């Protein structure tokens, strides 16, 4: 195992952190009943991806900034997505008076 609690932090540390954060976000997406909570956890996953991108940018291609630019776009898209997602949830709430994902089972038809 390359990674142990060293004082010198390298790429692998960031990647593992990103993996853990992604996992937590995934767990939230799968187990929460409130639709808004799921939206929040999707944000966590996207942020984990951002950490990954920026870590790669620093350690693998520092001069190109490609990771950071990619991360900017990810943030853009995530923000747009939260907006639209909330609008949808509000629209659903207006019709069904609930944001409990257990009640939204129309995918089976």
């Amino acid at each position, binding site marked *: 195992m390359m990674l142990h609690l060293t004082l010198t932090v390298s790429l692998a540390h960031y*990647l593992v952190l990103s*993996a853990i954060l992604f996992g937590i976000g*995934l767990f939230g*997406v*799968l*187990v*929460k009943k409130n639709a808004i909570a*799921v939206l929040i956890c999707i944000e966590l996953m996207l942020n984990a991806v951002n950490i990954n991108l920026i870590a790669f940018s620093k350690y693998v291609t520092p001069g190109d900034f490609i990771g950071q630019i990619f991360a900017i776009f990810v943030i853009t898209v995530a923000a747009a997505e939260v907006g639209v997602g909330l609008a949808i949830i509000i629209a659903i709430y207006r019709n069904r008076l609930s944001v409990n*994902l*257990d009640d*939204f*089972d*129309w*995918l*089976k*038809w």
Partner: protein
Amino acid sequence: MVEFAMQHAWLVPLLPALSFVIIVLLTRPWQKLSALVSITGMISSCVIAALAAYGVFTNHALTEKPLVYAARWFSLGLPGAPDLQINVGVQLDPTSAMMIFMVSLVASLIQIYSVGYMEGDPGFSVFFSYLSLFASSMLLLVISSNLLQMFVAWELVGLCSYLLIGFYTHKISAREAAKKAFVTCRVADFGLLLGLLALQIVFGTLDMVELSEKVHHFEEYTTMGIMTLIAVLVFLGPIGKSGQFPLHVWLPDAMEGPTPVSALIHAATMVVAGVYLVGRTMFLFSEVPAAMELIAVTGAFTALFAATIALTQREIKRILAYSTVSQLGYMMLALGVGSLTASMFHLWTHAFFKALMFLAAGSVLHALHHKADVWEMGGLLKKMPITGGTFVVGGLAIAGIPPFAGFWSKDEILLMAYNSGHYVLFAMAALTAFMTAFYMWRLIFLAFFGDEKPENHPHESPWTMTMPLVVLAVMATIGGLVGTPWTPWDMNWANWIWFHEAHHGEPNYMIMIGSVVLAASGIFLAYQLYCVDKTKARAHALADKYRALHTLSFNKFYIDEIYLWFNHSIIDGAAKLFFMFDIYIMDGIIINGIAAVTRLFGEGARVSQTGRLQNYALVFFLGVLAVAVILAFTDPSSAGLMLGGVK
């Protein structure tokens, strides 16, 4: 002329068939015209047959080697087996020549009779068309050179019998009787067909001349066991068609048809088709001793059995029907003990005297407006002299009083049975002879002698009906003279129609005198019981004394009831069993079971369709993991690529 007739013998069955077609298509609305067409066809056929027969009976060579005119009918090329080739043709030898002459003659006379009998019936033309069709099929059957062609004609004859028995379509009993006849014969014909198929498979041919040569040394083709099976199967056909026990049940019911039909079909011609078939295929049966025994025993038993039933019957045509069954038994017995000569001779004489008696009975029915119970008749001889006189001639013939025809033929059969060592069968035949004389003269005394009943107003029938009676009476008188032991050998029956060898037997005076004594005693007993005693008190007392036997005999030994019980309990029971199987096991377990299993799987799988996003997402990620794990074991580099990192 004779040469023409012999070379064109195929015209004999063709002409009645032509008249059938003409009547059906053209002349149906005109009754007399149809009758004329039919009778013309029949008589011209008779003339040609007579000429051909004359030609045959002057040419000795034909007894050894028959004259065959054949053409190919069809042939099938079969893969992996010899080609099947079926011919159609006519075979002229003494037996077939005798038959075509007899059949066409009797058919002509009966058609003339029908002009008077069926007068006023709305189906007059149709009746004649059926008669012509029947005559054509019977002649075809008799003259066939090939067993398959004979089978086709056999079935055609059965069809005509069905049509003619059920001619009075308004009577339920007639329709039922027609069905019974057809179905009973169908059961028998199944065996016959199997036998013919077996013959084709084993010997490769159904042509009678070829087959007789091949069967003579059958060991090269097959075993005795198979031959026995084939013989028994082929014999099944005649059991049905010729009314042997146990398939005799249709013949008495067939009396529902008009009397000319009974005379033609169920006395003279169709029912003898079975006997004729066995006679033609003697080359097969003579090789299988077990089959010969079977034929002889069946024949003797049938003769005795039918005679015991005829003793107590009341309807005039029923008595004659059971008499026919009994005489057919005689013919089979003769074949079974190995004498083609005696059998064909009895066939010949029986045709004349039985047709005669049926036609006379028809004349009586016509006069009494279809009242059939002999106990209600009496003293008819005075008002109907020709009918009564000819019936008496027939009665003498069947009883076996010389010099009438029946004596010579019946005596020949008794002689053959005795000479071949079948003493038990001989005794049965002798007892039957006694009974035959008794019941026939019981009929004659009850119907024609004694006091007239006041409610009957009989009158003699028109000349169209009495002329055939007279002709047949003449034939019944002299027809047997061709076969006496004292007939010149050139003209003697035994010289022409034989199997294996022509046998000029010494007259056995013991048997001759014995049979005459039996016949005379039978007539005398009937005379005592039914003629001398005006009130028939002794007859009734005798019947009361043996009440159980009388009931048994009167009810035909309950054979019909037994068959019905068999059908209802066993066949319907088996059908019910299969029905239950179908409903509960096939439908219930298998079909519904498969459906239930499918439904089970469906409902099980339906649970996974929750419609909830998070459930689907979970399964999605499980899938990704599964793919990664699988790839990790098979292709680690791509697993690494999927989950993050390059090695």
